[in-house]
């Protein structure tokens, strides 16, 4: 997970939410830029349909200062072990979170493909012995 914070800010965030995965820091947003994640405008960040989620987040987590650019749009990518992008989701609004079920489905599909060549190779080997 990449944040716009420095190591101290990122560590504070990780400790607050007890996040179990690696935290990377990009205070100058170069990685965000490299992955072509744009800045949003007021319509994408707090427009109709988003305000409800924004208020819910404020009530749940409290009001605090934005880390990094408040305009920066988020994004989610799935990358396989060969370094190939298997899923990309640049947010269309600040509340455009992809469902966890979709992410898990994509990962399961990748696992299935990773296992397939070995099964296929086993079948071919077996066929070879029969012939």
């Amino acid at each position: 997970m990449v944040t716009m914070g420095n190591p101290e800010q990122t560590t504070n965030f990780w400790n607050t939410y007890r996040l179990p995965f690696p935290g990377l820091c990009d205070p100058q947003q170069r990685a965000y830029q490299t992955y072509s994640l744009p800045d949003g405008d007021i319509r994408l960040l707090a427009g109709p349909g988003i305000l409800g989620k924004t208020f819910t987040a404020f009530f749940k987590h409290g009001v605090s200062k934005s880390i990094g650019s408040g305009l920066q749009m988020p994004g989610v990518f799935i990358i396989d072990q060969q370094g190939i992008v298997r899923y990309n989701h640049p947010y269309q609004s600040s509340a455009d979170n992809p469902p966890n079920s979709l992410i898990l489905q994509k990962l399961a599909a990748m696992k299935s493909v990773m296992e397939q060549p070995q099964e296929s190779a086993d079948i071919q080997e077996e066929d070879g012995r029969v012939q």
Partner: protein
Amino acid sequence: MSTQPVQPIQPARQRPSVGPQEGMPALDLQLQNKDGAKVRLSDYWQRSPIVLVFLRHFG
């Protein structure tokens, strides 16, 4: 001493509207982790598939 001007970071609204697409190679980058150590994204994806999340957060 070099007189070459430093290239400014491209303003957000001039960036391409789409990032790396499905089936394309991911862009490898070196970043600091939260402990201050330098790491590459490929350090993670070479171990197992990764979900790379670019966060917008408050805190």
